[in-house]
Structures are given as C-alpha cells and as structure tokens.
C-alpha cells in the first residue's frame, strides 16, 4: 500500500516537473524571438520594408500561420472548402496576418516588454506579457501549443481580445450571407488607405 502511494506521489511529482518544464520551454522560446524582434526594431537605420521582412523571418518558425488560418474559419467552414479554396484562403489570410502584425509592431517606440508567469491551460501554454507604453499598459497574451517539433503560437490576445476570435466572427458574418468566393474576393481586395 505504502509503495503504491510512493509510486503515485513520485509520478505526480514527475508530471509536475514535466509540466513546469513545458511552460518554461515555451516561455524561453517566445522570449528569444521577441527579443530578437526588438533588436531589429531598434535598428532605426534600416528601412521599414527591410525591418518588416526581418521580423517576419524571426517569428515565422514560432507563429503557426497555417493553423491560424484553419482556426479562423473554424470547424464549421474549413472542412467544407475545396483544396484550391483552402490553399487560396491560407495564402491570402497569412499575408494579411503578416502585414498587419509587422505594421502593428512598427508602431513600437520605446515600450518595455515585461514577461509574466506563463500558465498551463490544458495542453496549451499561455504566456502573458505586458507592454509598458507611454501612459498605459497593454496586455498581450501569447497562446502556444505543442506541435510535433516545438512550441508554436496559434493566437494572440491583445487586451483580452483574441485575434483569431475576431476574425472568426468577421468570416462568419461574410459566410452567413455569402459564399467562400465572396470572402476570398474581400481578402484579395487591397485596402484603400
């Protein structure tokens, strides 16, 4: 009986440390990438276009853009698309994500990024960060899942607003009344700025 108890206790401790390791690994990975992005942003002598490219290069391995595309349509719509539609949608949506991410991050001036303790949520790891900007703090939550070879970001929440969730409801709005081709057309249309 006692040995069983020890056994259970031991395995519990083991799984605990494994969990702690997981969150640690995810956090360190993200930290490394974000710090590398900041280094690029600080190279003010670079052209914005070059900066954008560099940043995308850095975050590519850790941001799972193609998963984001699937999640943005959700199980309700994604499986119903033809192979070509899936391909086209992913291309367009990923481009949109990359553009808006790199554009948004170029607004960065001299904020400090503060990492808070990561949280394990089921199989995922949430890494909360706070951007101390001029006169307020902006919370940014990176949500990561464990893919085959490493931890990857599948969603970002800014001030509690999930990127994926917001796209889901927009796409739902378009697809409720229109077809997937309407949606593709909207994604193709360049924004009037």
């Amino acid at each position, binding site marked *: 009986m006692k040995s069983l108890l020890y056994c259970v206790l031991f395995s519990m401790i083991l799984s605990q440390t494994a969990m702690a390791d997981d969150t640690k690994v995810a956090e360190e990975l993200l930290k490394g990438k974000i710090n590398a992005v900041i280094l690029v942003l600080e190279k003010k002598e670079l052209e914005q276009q070059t900066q954008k490219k560099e940043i995308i290069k850095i975050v590519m391995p850790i941001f799972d853009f193609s998963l984001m595309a699937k999640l943005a349509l959700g199980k309700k719509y994604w499986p119903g698309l033809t192979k070509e539609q*899936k391909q086209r949608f992913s291309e367009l949506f990923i481009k949109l994500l990359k553009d*808006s991410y790199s554009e948004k991050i170029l607004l960065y001036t001299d904020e*400090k990024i503060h990492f808070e303790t990561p949280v394990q949520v089921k199989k995922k790891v949430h890494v909360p960060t706070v951007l101390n900007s001029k006169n307020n703090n902006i919370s940014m939550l990176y949500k990561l*899942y464990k893919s085959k070879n490493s931890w990857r970001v599948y969603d970002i929440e800014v001030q509690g607003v999930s990127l994926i969730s917001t796209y889901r409801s*927009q796409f739902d709005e378009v697809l409720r009344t229109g077809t997937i081709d309407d949606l593709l057309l909207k994604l193709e249309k360049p924004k009037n700025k």
Partner: protein
Amino acid sequence: MKNRLEYILFIFALAFFLLSGCAHDRKKGSTPHFDPTAVSPVSQDQDISLSKETPSDLEMNDEFFDEFEEEYKGRSGRVADPLSPWNRAMFHFNDKFYFWLLKPVSKGYKAIVPEVVRIGVSNFFCNLGTPIRLTSCLLQGKMKATGTELVRFLMNSTVGVLGFGDPAQKCLKLDITDEDLGQTLGVYGIGNGFYVVWPLLGPSTLRDSVGMVGDWFLDPVLYVEPFGAKLGILSYEKVNETSFRIGDYESIRDAAIEPYEAFRDAYIQYRKTKVEK
C-alpha cells in the same frame, strides 16, 4: 467661450510650471527590459528551413481541431445587434470624425506639446477618475483595490501635485484598477443587453451605457459650469489621450475584413475580459 479658453489655459499653465519633475520620465530610446540570460541565440536561417510556411498540410485531424474549437466556441464576442442600421451609421460617423478632426488635431497637439506635459495631463485626468474607480471597486467588494485607489488618490493629489504626477505608481508600485459601473453591473451578472454605438463616445452596450450614465455623475468634470467649459475640458482630455494612440485605430481597422463586425466583436471581448478580472 472665454471661460472654456481660460480653463484650458489654466490646465496648461499648471502643467507647464508644476510638473516637469513629477511626471513619469520615460526616457526616449531606453532599451527594453529583459533578462539577458534568457536571450537565446537566434540562427534565423536554420529556423526558416525548419518550418517553411507552405500551406501544404491543408487537412486537419478532427481530434486536433476539436481541441481548439472548444476554446473558441465559448468565447466569441457575440451580442444582439437590433440597432444595426443606426450603429453602422454611427460607426461610419465616428470613423470620419476620427480621420477628419480628431486625428489631425491630436497630431498637431502632439507635435507642439512635449510628451512630459501630455503624460502629466493624462495623469491629472486619471486622478480625477478616482471616484468612478473607487465606487466600482467598493461595489464589487474589491477591498484591496479600493484601498489602493484611496492611497493613490491621496498621494497623487498631494505629493503628485493635483494628480499631474504619479508618485504612487512610481514609488509604491500601485497601479490603477480600471473599474467602472458597467463592469460592476457585469460582475452582478447583468448581461450586455444589446450593442450600441454612440456618436463620439464609440462602442457600448445597453449595460455599459447605463453604467456610463452612472459614471458621469461620479466624474468631477461633469459638474463644471458652464456647459462650454465642460465641453472644452472633455474635448481636451480626448485629444490628449488620442495623442498617445495615433495609429492604433488605423491598424485594427486596416487588418479587418469587416471593420464594423471586428470592432463590435473586439469591444465585447474586451469588456468581458475586464468584467472577469
């Protein structure tokens, strides 16, 4: 008109003479804070080859999909929108108002007024908002936060010179608890009701609008007479706040496919998170 000008000048004068030393001095070009030991060397080339972003794996395992679906099902920013035509018109109006008036004015203001002054002004208005936060914390039974708000108010109004400085944050690390009556109603279990977009004030819901009216009664600025002065102060506050956020609205709007839905969804999610906090 004259009164309003006087008020603005008064605030300006105060700001200029009193606070240069008190406001947060966020130095330009300071390096971001991070633990140097945590920086892992990034070898980009290797990383790139590791995961080419080709949408080749277009199929998704059902089980894997469900794992994520669960997360998004519960937390969408869905809300009733019976006033949709009005709301869309107001969204459009606010959009134009921002680009044609608020943004150029705030940009000009930002160019003229030093950052340290703008931060001081922002602190001043934040301090004036204490009654709203204090009451809401109290009504939600958040005793620690209530205490924090009280200490912040006393300290910033005195040592911080009428709230232009924020020594409570700087020295005691006391952050504000951003509560309002709309959130308080949410904590009491009252739902959003429906979505509504107000001209100039922006997105809200029935619940948050009721809260907002309550908040007005707790806002000292609303007791300023005459009406012109009140309006002047409120506009100035808005311009000052916007001067820190030029580009934010645009970036969200440009990343959206359906901007109206995007902002509606974002507002509901944002408020939901705040209520839960």
